[in-house]
């Protein structure tokens, strides 16, 4: 699904990602763990297409297409979804109308007709129940005045509505209480199947205990320094990053 080859990225001439190679196969859940400032968020932004990064070298293939020249919205339309670490607030736009605009933009890009509004709203309501969200959450302004936990839940809510092929979860677990963490990881686990892939970026073990990744990579100074399966998470939790750095 996603193939990163020899990727080098810098910001203001400082190298952040250094000759990275990473492959995420279809149906797999891949976790990247690493200390603060190791380049994890840069990686998710470069995959999603955020401007402001210098790509010095390398390619990123998504289902066989090099996506580095595509705009963020084109990548989104192809099925790449990023759950933001810090979701932005947009006052005056209801959460549900934002989501509908997003879905219809993607449908338009892919040559499909607009959503049926009623069906869309019903799906929204069903899903918000499953995620334990009050339905007022749909009519509130996008992320505006949401608590930290609500913002993160909303990212998962958008993800489940948009049904992407590749989900990048950028520290979705930061600032969550244990109940919210459970709701979110349940949502992610239920969505994960053989047709999509997950890239989970986190500091901590907690989330991974719920999601159970297939592969775990430890990231430092812009590259992978250790790879393994779920057991690596435990080792990391016991010994800390120092062991690997």
């Amino acid at each position, binding site marked *: 699904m996603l193939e990163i080859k020899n990727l080098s990225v810098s910001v203001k001439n400082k190298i952040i990602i250094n000759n990275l190679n990473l492959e995420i196969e279809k149906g797999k859940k891949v976790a990247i763990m690493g200390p603060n400032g190791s380049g994890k968020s840069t990686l998710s932004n470069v995959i999603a*297409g955020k401007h402001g990064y210098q790509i010095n070298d390398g390619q990123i293939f998504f289902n066989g297409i090099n996506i580095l020249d595509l*705009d963020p919205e084109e990548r989104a339309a192809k099925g790449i979804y990023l759950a*933001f670490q810090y979701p*932005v607030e*947009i*006052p005056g*736009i209801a959460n549900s109308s934002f989501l509908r605009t997003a*879905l219809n933009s993607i449908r338009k890009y892919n040559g499909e007709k607009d959503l049926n509004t009623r069906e869309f709203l019903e799906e929204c309501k069903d899903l918000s129940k499953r995620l334990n969200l009050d339905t007022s959450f749909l009519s509130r302004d*996008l992320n505006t005045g949401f608590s930290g936990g609500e913002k993160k839940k909303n990212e998962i809510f958008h993800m489940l509505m948009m049904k992407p092929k590749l989900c990048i979860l950028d520290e979705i677990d930061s600032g969550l209480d244990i109940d919210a963490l459970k709701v979110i990881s349940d949502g992610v686990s239920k969505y994960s199947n053989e047709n999509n892939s997950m890239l989970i970026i986190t500091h901590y073990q907690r989330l991974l205990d719920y999601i159970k990744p297939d592969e775990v990579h430890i990231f430092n100074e812009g590259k992978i320094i250790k790879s393994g399966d779920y057991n690596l998470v435990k080792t990391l939790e016991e010994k800390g990053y120092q062991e690997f750095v």
Partner: protein
Amino acid sequence: MTTSETAKIVEEASEYKYGFTTDIEQEFAPKGLNEDIVKFISKKKDEPQWLLDWRLNAFDMWKKREYDMPGWANLKYDNIDFQDIHYFAAPKSDEEKPKSLDEIDPELLRAYNKLGIPLKEQEFLAGIKNSHKVAVDAVFDSVSVATTFKDELNKLGIIFCSFSEAVQTHPELVKKYLGSVVPTNDNFFSNLNSAVFSDGSFVYIPPNVKCPMELSTYFRINAANTGQFERTLIIADRGSYVSYLEGCTAPMRDENQLHAAVVELVALEDAEIKYSTVQNWYPGDKNGNGGIYNFVTKRGTCLGDNSKISWTQVETGSAVTWKYPSVILKGNNSKGEFYSVALSNNMQQADTGTKMIHLGKNTSSRIVSKGISAGRGQQTYRGLVSVLPNAINARNFTQCDSLLIGNDCGAHTVPYINVRNELSDVAHEATTSKISEEQLYYCRQRGINEEDATALIVNGFCREVLKNLPMEFAVEAKKLLELSLEGAVG
């Protein structure tokens, strides 16, 4: 042209056997402004002597200030030569008009298509030869719809007609209220308008009648070519209610660069007037060539106790906008509101805001202004909140937000607050923000392209104002904002 030549034209024109609206080819006055021109206009409209005298008095006052145009607004434009303007110029003759849409600026057509305007209406708006009759039929489905509409209003005693018609049919009302809210010499442009006003709307709502529909100029069949010096007067008698819509979201072409309208609203005891405007005159091209200069005086008086006047405006057009819809809160417990969205893109300039003058006790006012600047646009909010000594317990709340798109535009806020008693409460909040890269990136990551994302964020920014517009107007206004923002990003 000498005075005697003008007089000759006046004579010839007045002998012309067809009426003003039926055959326009022969209708014109030479460029320039003098007493004869004022007489010509009045004569063409077959006005009574008192109105001619009123115009002439206005002209006398204006003449003294002709070279004294106000310069305090934050606007830059070329000097206006008031002697180089037609004050009674008929629209172009059919021979001069474009023959089909093929001859129309493709940019304009693109705008029409984007707004989803039917072809027949497009032809009308673009001023295509012979398009008027067809368009009116297209708009109204058939004339009978408009007739039914008029019947319904008549039954309730509501008067809704052109200003010129009202002068003939209801002179006592016109005489009583004309100039009662905006005095002739109030300002340079109201003074000019008072001398040469062309036409506009007249509305009277009898006591205790709630007007059952939104009154729109769109529904007034003779509304075409009300001209550049529009004059509108709306009177809501005791306990009545009316919602009035002015303007059109479609970009209108107009040969006249200078527009100077006057709108007066009068709300008697317990009455309410809601006045909504969408202004989309030609803004000029990207480099600031052409475009309408719009100098408008709009004011309402809450004359009676417990009355209310509410202005809502969406201003996206014109090269220069100078406009301060205001409310004089004279009646006790009266309320004034001003909700505004003004957008300046490319080289557009807008200096707009409101005045809330609190005279009565327990009067309250609310101001919500949303200014959006893009391109090299300049946007100024200028507002006055004045609480006079007798306005005990007056309250005002002002929210004044500016949104910047790009690095070359400007937003300015000039609030004047004048409180003359200690028992009143005045609050002013202002913010200036920029659409952030993070907001755009978030939207784009969700599949929404940059242009749509900008429009979405702008719509959100304006929601508090847009929600005050009648439903169908609000939908159009949203589309209009999107259209006006084109080219503002990327």
